[in-house]
């Protein structure tokens, strides 16, 4: 019987166990430590502290402040106005952006390049500049009114300090991001997929409704969530262009804190807005996770 060398331990001779994975994992954790640390100390802890504070009334746990929030007609009007503004502006921006993204997907040449550039232009203009530009253009005695008067129209009513003012600014401000998101989504739909539908007799509306929109569902949801969250938390545009009442929640919050010196109520307003944002944010993360799982 031939001699068989017996290994001295559990590992066969000549083999070594690699510990590379462990050190790689540690290196990975070290890389994310700074952003995670900042997130926890600068965002998570103050948030938890603030949320907890809204439930503490004179040293006792109470939802009194929330009852007050939801029973105050003016506060609820502000919340409704904020959500309506977010919804209407997001849908409008999404519709315009979808049209632009569709045009860019199926067109080429100089005009398409120019439109692409123009659609991304608002991305590089700060909100304060957009707001001032709209005040000067659409406001009383602004350029638009002067132009209308030149052609004999003198009944112009400015949208400045009405809900239409911030709506127009949000629309303009929120075109680039959905154009980028939707263009990326549309690029996933092959030319052949569209041509196959055309070839089988489908006209443009059916191709849009049955071929493009269903395949764009995730991109549309992601873009909607991003715009909506951005709008309901926006301050500069409604502060500069919005009506005195109702107010958007961000302006209302600032006034509650700065003018009314009522930080406890401002905190409750912030928590309610944060919860609404979190719901939409969670929905955004779920959609993104589904997209990633689909891609794998």
């Amino acid at each position, binding site marked *: 019987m031939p001699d068989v060398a017996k290994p001295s331990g559990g590992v066969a001779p000549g083999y070594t166990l690699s510990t590379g994975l462990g050190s790689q994992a540690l290196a990975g954790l070290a890389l994310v430590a700074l952003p995670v640390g900042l997130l926890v100390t600068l965002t998570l802890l103050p948030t938890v502290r603030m949320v907890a504070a809204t439930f503490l009334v004179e040293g006792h746990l109470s939802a009194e402040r929330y009852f007050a929030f939801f029973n105050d007609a003016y506060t609820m009007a502000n919340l409704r106005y904020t959500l309506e503004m977010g919804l209407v502006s997001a849908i409008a921006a999404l519709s315009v952006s979808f049209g632009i993204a569709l045009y860019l997907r199926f067109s080429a040449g100089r005009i398409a390049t120019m439109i692409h550039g123009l659609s991304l232009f608002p991305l590089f203009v700060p909100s304060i500049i957009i707001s001032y530009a709209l005040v000067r253009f659409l406001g009383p005695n602004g350029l638009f009114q002067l132009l209308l008067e030149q052609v004999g129209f003198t009944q112009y009513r400015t949208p400045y300090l009405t809900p239409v003012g911030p709506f127009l600014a949000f629309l303009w401000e929120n075109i680039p991001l959905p154009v980028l998101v939707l263009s990326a989504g549309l690029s996933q739909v092959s030319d052949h997929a569209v*041509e196959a539908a055309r070839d089988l007799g489908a006209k443009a509306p059916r191709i849009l409704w049955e071929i493009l929109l269903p395949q764009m569902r995730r991109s549309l949801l992601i873009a909607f969530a991003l715009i909506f969250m951005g709008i309901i938390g926006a301050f500069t545009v409604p502060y500069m262009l919005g009506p005195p009442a109702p107010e958007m929640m961000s302006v209302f919050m600032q006034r509650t804190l700065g003018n009314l010196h009522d930080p406890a109520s401002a905190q409750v307003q912030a928590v309610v807005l944060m919860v609404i944002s979190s719901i939409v944010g969670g929905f955004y993360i779920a959609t993104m996770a589904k997209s990633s799982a689909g891609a794998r």
Partner: protein
Amino acid sequence: MLQIDAITKTYQGTPAVRDASFTVARGELVCLLGPSGCGKSTLLRIISGLTDCDSGSVRIEGVDMTATQANRRPTAMVFQSHALWSHMSVAQNVGFGLRVRGLPKAEIAAKTAAVLDLVGLQAFAKRLPAELSGGQAQRVALARCLVVEPKVLLMDEPFSALDAHLRKGLREELKALQGRLDLTTIFVTHDQEEAMELADRIVVMQGGRVEQVGPPGVLYQNPSTLGVAQFIGAMNTCTTTLRQGAADWYGLDLRLPLPDGEVALLCRPEDVYPDAKGAAARVTRVIDLGPVTKVTLMTEAGDLLTWTCPRDQAPDLGRVLTLLPRRLHAFRNGALIGLAQSPLPAQTAGAPA
């Protein structure tokens, strides 16, 4: 059934299709064959209406369809990438064309089931395209076209992304189905074996032009241009000069009753045979292809010559053979000027023609 007349298409000054004309009879399967970029897919897209042509006409059953939009033409196209809609089930993909035509739901369901049965995929009706193999996806794409009963079925390299074994199986299935349904079909491919196996007739295209149209056997035996001869099957090409009816074929003087001048003499590997009076060449490679053996030889001048012989006649490496051509195609300026058949009279070097 289908008449293509003088179709021309140019992309930004570059001609893609030049003056292409041919006809397709009812129930015929015609392959558009040519190398990549020869304009065959562009021509197919012009027939489908997905691409406009600059000039010329497309007639289906005598009706001019040149200006008709793709969604109004009685054609249906299978794409190379199958182009199934990922959000729809197999049955929804197949039934799409019927929904577009406004058929009742019950009729759509019945027709969809029947055509899925035809391509052997009835059990897959509820699956999504992502859950299908490449071959199954391509069969769904075919079913999607068949269900609308097109007058002309157009197929743009439908099997080129599949592996060789699957491709062969699908070719046989398609041929059987096409014959059973008597379906007029145009099939684009760059694979000559695929075209030879499938087609009733082949349209060979090169540089945007239709070079030759004919049954596979005719194209193989009697290519009318140098391009067709070199594209379909293997050829030994010997470029030489004809003087007083004699040409130098790999060092051997051959009598060819053709006008003097530059000439390309082409001979198929299976049309070469050993003969004591032939051109001498040394065996440099022997490849056993199973039923036949491919022998590569080097002539004294350093030219390579291929001979396909029966297995039992395979020579040893390094052996010097003398070979003669049985059939020789002579081309001048790309066009056929003569076809010489065996026995080709060889003459001794220096002897008068």
